[in-house]
C-alpha cells in the first residue's frame, strides 16, 4: 500500500467534511455508525438499527413509508403547480387547462392529482395494517392517536385541493361538503344547540357568523372560498401535517421501534 493519501480520504479528513459530518472520518465501529445516524437531523428520526422483520414487506406492506414518499412527491409537484396557478374565479379553471395542455410537462398536474388519490389510499391501508397487526396497542397507543390526526389532515388536504380546479365537480363537492358544516352542533347555524346561543331574538350563530361562514369566507361559495381553500391547501395544512409527521416518525423509535410479528 502506498503511503500517499487518496483524494477521497483527504476530503474525508478535511475541515469541510468533518464539520458537516461529525464522528471522525469513515465510521468503522458499530458505535461510530450509530453516532452518524444520531448526529443527523434527518436520520435521527429513524431507528439506528432495524430488526430483520421490520423490512419484511409481508408484515409492514410499507404503507407508512409509501405515504411519506407520496407526500414528498405531492409537495414538490404542488410547489411547481403554484408557479402557474392563480386562485381567482377568473383564472383558476383556465390555469388548470393551461397547466395540462400548454405548460411543458403538463403531466405535473396529473402527478399531483393521482398522487393525492394514491396518498389517501395508502394512508387508509397503513391504518388497516396497523390495526390488523395490533400495532396500536401499548406502548404505541399515543402514536395511533397521532396517526388518526394525520389521517384527518390527509383528508382535509384532499378536500381543500378538490375545490382548486373550480369546475362543476369541485364547486358541487364543496357545496355539499360545506353545507354539512351547517349542522355542526352549537357552531353551525342549523346544528343542534345553535338556537340556545342567543339572547332574546338575537342569535349569535347565524348564516353570517357560524363555522361554515369561517370555512368558506362568506355566506355563499365564491372568491373568498377559493382563496381560503388555496391558503389552507398550500400553507396551513401542510405546515401542520409536517409537525405531526415528525412526531409520528420519532415516536416509532421512542416506542421501541416497529412492532414485531406475533
Amino acid at each position, binding site marked *: 500500500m502506498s503511503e500517499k493519501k487518496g483524494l477521497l480520504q483527504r476530503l474525508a479528513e478535511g475541515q469541510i467534511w468533518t464539520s458537516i459530518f461529525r464522528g471522525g472520518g469513515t465510521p468503522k465501529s458499530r458505535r461510530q455508525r450509530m453516532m452518524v445516524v444520531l448526529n443527523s437531523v434527518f436520520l435521527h428520526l429513524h431507528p439506528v438499527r432495524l430488526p430483520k422483520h421490520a423490512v419484511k414487506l409481508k408484515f409492514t406492506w410499507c404503507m407508512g413509508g409509501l405515504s411519506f414518499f407520496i407526500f414528498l412527491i405531492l409537495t414538490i409537484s404542488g410547489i411547481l403547480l403554484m408557479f402557474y396557478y392563480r386562485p381567482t374565479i377568473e383564472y383558476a379553471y383556465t390555469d388548470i387547462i393551461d397547466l395540462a395542455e400548454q405548460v411543458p410537462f403538463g403531466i405535473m398536474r396529473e402527478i399531483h392529482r393521482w398522487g393525492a388519490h394514491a396518498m389517501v389510499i395508502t394512508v387508509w391501508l397503513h391504518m388497516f395494517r396497523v390495526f390488523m397487526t395490533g400495532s396500536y396497542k401499548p406502548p404505541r397507543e399515543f402514536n395511533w392517536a397521532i396517526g388518526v390526526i394525520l389521517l384527518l389532515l390527509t383528508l382535509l388536504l384532499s378536500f381543500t385541493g378538490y375545490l382548486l380546479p373550480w369546475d362543476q365537480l369541485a364547486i*358541487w363537492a364543496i*357545496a*355539499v361538503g360545506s*353545507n*354539512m358544516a351547517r349542522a355542526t352542533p352549537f357552531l353551525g347555524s342549523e346544528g343542534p344547540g345553535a338556537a340556545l346561543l342567543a339572547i332574546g331574538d338575537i342569535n349569535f350563530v347565524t348564516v*353570517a*357568523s357560524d363555522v361554515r*361562514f*369561517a370555512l368558506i*369566507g*362568506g*355566506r*355563499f361559495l*365564491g*372568491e*373568498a372560498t377559493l382563496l381560503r381553500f388555496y391558503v389552507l391547501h398550500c400553507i396551513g395544512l401542510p405546515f401542520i401535517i409536517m409537525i405531526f409527521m415528525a412526531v409520528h416518525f420519532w415516536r416509532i423509535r421512542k416506542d421501541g421501534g416497529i412492532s414485531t410479528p406475533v
Partner: protein
Amino acid sequence: MPDKTDKKTATLSPSAPPPAALDNADSNSEVTRRSFFSWLSIGWIAFVAATGGFFTMMLRFFFPNVLFEPVQTFRAGFPDDYQAGQVDLRWKAKFGTWIVRNDEGIYALSTVCTHLGCTPNWLNAEQKFKCPCHGSGFRKTGINFEGPAPRPLERFRIILADDGQIVIDKTKKYQQEKGQWSDPEAFLKV
C-alpha cells in the same frame, strides 16, 4: 403586594417590627420569595392575557365585516311578464330563483336543494323540480315528494316596488315546515 407585607408586620408586632423584617425592608436589592412569586404571577397573567388576546384576534380575523358577494335583492320585472301556471327560469342562473305564477299570485322559490345544496332542474313534462345530485323531487309549489330532501324548497320575500315592479329579497327566507308560507310577503297576490 406592599399591603400584605404591611399587614404581616402589623400582626406580628404593631409597635416595634422585628429586626428581620427591618433587614428585609432595608435590603431592596435582594429578591424575596414573596416578591418573586408576585412578579411571577403578574408575568404569567400578562402572558396568558396577551396570548388569549392574540388568539381572539386570530379567530375574529376570519369573520370579515364587508362581504364581496353578489347583490341579494333584485327587480324581477312586472307581474304581467309572468304567465299563470308557468315556472319561470330567467333568474335561475343569475340569482338562483325560480318565479312561479299560479291563478292567485306569484312566489319566488330558492334553487337550492334542501338536501345538500345542489341545483335541481325544472322538468316541464313531469311538472316537477328534480335534483341531479341525489334525485330529490319537488312539486311546482316547492313541496318535496321524493328522494332524500327532508323539507320543501325555501321561498324568498317578494313584494311590489313603487313603480309596480316585483322585488325579490333573498336575505329573507320562508320555510313551509315552519308555517312561514302564509306570511303576506312570502306570496304576492295579483
